[in-house]
């Protein structure tokens, strides 16, 4: 199986490629990262103009009906260019949760703001003790009239400093580690009682520690159903992050190959040394397999096959290890240059490292892949 893109998908791909090629080269990215805010509203606007923020949403939700394959196409190109703007957080994660778990009124209230670029969103689920367990939630929510009131703390919330709104997981019943009893809430980032401590991430983006003290939140999805909703959300995010990783892997391979053909040492190009040739072949193989697995996952996300969640973990793990191998080798084969902040190679390394932590590292997902098989 090799995905034959439709005309619409080809158009999407070529338009994203053109936009990023023209406006998002490595120096442009460096300026965006160094800016005070840390992402570019101009670029976000350009994404909206191109329909990217609408692409994955269903027609009934006001989108272009492109689904997971549109996400894959967009995120693959974003990965190639190390785009920092919060597409995964806003469109895939929050947008996906609103589309799949929200009432028609909530979809009407929230999705247009995402599509028209006016609202940035992120998901706050990790806590100090949670590691990668979606169900380990100590932040509590109690009912107060038609709203809920949240108290607790979330950690390492990516894109929180950029967000207008958050989806926050909090416990409405049960013990700290129970699978049932977690609920999801829409929270205004500027709500009373919500405090952010912002900092920079390893891959040049922004995140925050969040403390919540009696913060007003609107329930989204059924009370107590949060973990199942988050698992489906994680599967979709994994589809996006895997595509991004594959884009990065491809760029690293191309850069390394190019470097090996030009860099001279000991009187010849380093690409003529067999040891390095075999290394680059292994990088080539890793890319091919990661690309194939990315397509396989995205097709499954579209079809919503059973066993999808297990496949998502498998892909996150396998592509994660592939990305790590390629990143390590790309730095090594670039020699001292690979260690500089000036060259793009190190930045791809750091983005791949970041992807390999979000929603669980490769070791976590290998185990989950094994456990889901045993349970079946």
């Amino acid at each position, binding site marked *: 199986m090799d995905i034959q893109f439709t005309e619409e998908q080809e158009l999407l791909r070529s338009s994203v490629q053109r936009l990023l090629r023209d406006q998002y080269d490595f120096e442009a990215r460096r300026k965006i990262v160094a800016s005070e805010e840390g992402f570019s509203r101009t670029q976000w606007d350009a994404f909206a103009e191109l329909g990217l923020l609408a692409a994955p949403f269903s027609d009934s939700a006001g989108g272009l009906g492109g689904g997971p394959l549109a996400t894959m196409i967009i995120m693959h190109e974003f990965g190639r260019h190390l785009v920092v703007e919060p597409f995964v957080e806003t469109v895939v994660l929050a947008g996906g949760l609103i589309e799949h778990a929200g009432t028609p009124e909530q979809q009407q209230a929230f999705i247009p703001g995402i599509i028209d670029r006016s609202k940035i969103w992120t998901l706050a689920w*990790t806590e*100090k003790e*949670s*590691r*990668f367990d979606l169900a380990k939630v100590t932040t509590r929510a109690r009912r107060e009239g038609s709203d809920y009131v949240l108290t607790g703390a979330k*950690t*390492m919330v*990516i894109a929180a400093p950029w967000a207008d709104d958050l989806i926050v997981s909090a416990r409405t019943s049960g013990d700290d580690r129970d699978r049932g009893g977690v609920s999801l809430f829409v929270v205004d980032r500027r709500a009373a009682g919500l405090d952010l*401590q*912002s*900092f*920079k*991430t*390893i*891959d040049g983006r922004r*995140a925050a*520690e969040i403390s919540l003290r009696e913060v007003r939140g609107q329930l989204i999805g059924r009370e107590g159903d949060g973990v199942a909703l988050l698992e489906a959300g994680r599967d979709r995010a994994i589809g996006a992050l895997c595509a991004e990783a594959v884009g990065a892997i491809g760029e690293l391979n191309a850069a390394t190959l190019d470097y090996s053909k030009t860099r001279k040492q000991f009187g010849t190009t380093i690409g003529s*040394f067999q*040891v*390095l040739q075999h290394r680059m072949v292994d990088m080539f193989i890793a890319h091919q397999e990661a690309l194939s697995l990315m397509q396989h996952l995205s097709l499954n996300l579209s079809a919503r096959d059973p066993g999808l969640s297990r496949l998502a973990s498998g892909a996150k793990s396998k592509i994660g290890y592939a990305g790590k191998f390629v990143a*390590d080798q790309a*730095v*090594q084969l670039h*020699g*001292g240059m*690979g*260690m*500089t*902040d*000036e060259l793009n190679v*190190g*930045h791809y*390394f*750091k983005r791949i*490292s*970041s992807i390999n*932590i*979000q929603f669980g*590292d490769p*070791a*976590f997902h290998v*185990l989950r892949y094994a456990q889901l098989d045993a349970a079946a």
Partner: protein
Amino acid sequence: MTATIIVNGHKTWTTLAQHADWIFCLVRTDPNAKPQSGISFLLIDMKSPGVTVRPIITIDGSHEVNDVFLENVRVPVENLVGEENKGWTYAKFLLGNERTSMAGIGRSTRYIQKLKQIVEAEIPADDPAHLEFLRDIARVELDVLALEATELRVVAQLARGIDPGPAASLFKIRGTEIFQDITELTHRAIGNYGLAIREHPVSANRFMPGPDYGHTASEKYLNARKLSIYGGSNEIQRNIIAKAVLGL
């Protein structure tokens, strides 16, 4: 009037040049000699006119290395170490010392102790990741044990006048790979906190999330990528053993 050596050129990857008062430089003093034979070992005052230091920021964000530009720098001939054109011999001696010390047993042992503490603090015993980390740590501890035993055997041999020669490259290869493994495990052990990294220059005023013991994990993990590259890359070190020890 004392004789003067005029130095022109460009040194790179110069560690901590921004803080240095002196630089010891290998300079070419006989362009007509064979490459290794025309080099001298010269001490240069960093405050000499014509010396310019330019920072090279590395992927961990720190300013550790530099470019040093030398333009018509006047150096008194007294600053020559040893004989003119014998510099490569002196440099090889220094490199030989560096290679055995790169086993880094002491540092790796210290970092493993810290890693164990981090795992105990971060990963509850009933998380399957806990046992996985214990196993991974045990593996790297055995790597350290084997390298340490080898180093002690070589030290004993040296005391009897037996020099390991080019086989000492194995200390650099294994020592660096071990430390890279340890920094990687440490970064993984802090889980989500591995998404953060300290900004440079480091300031107590800037907020860094998570427990103190994890604050340097990201930058150490990134910085350690240099170990398999510098000091003679691990690929070169393997070539040395292949040629000079195995005769291939």
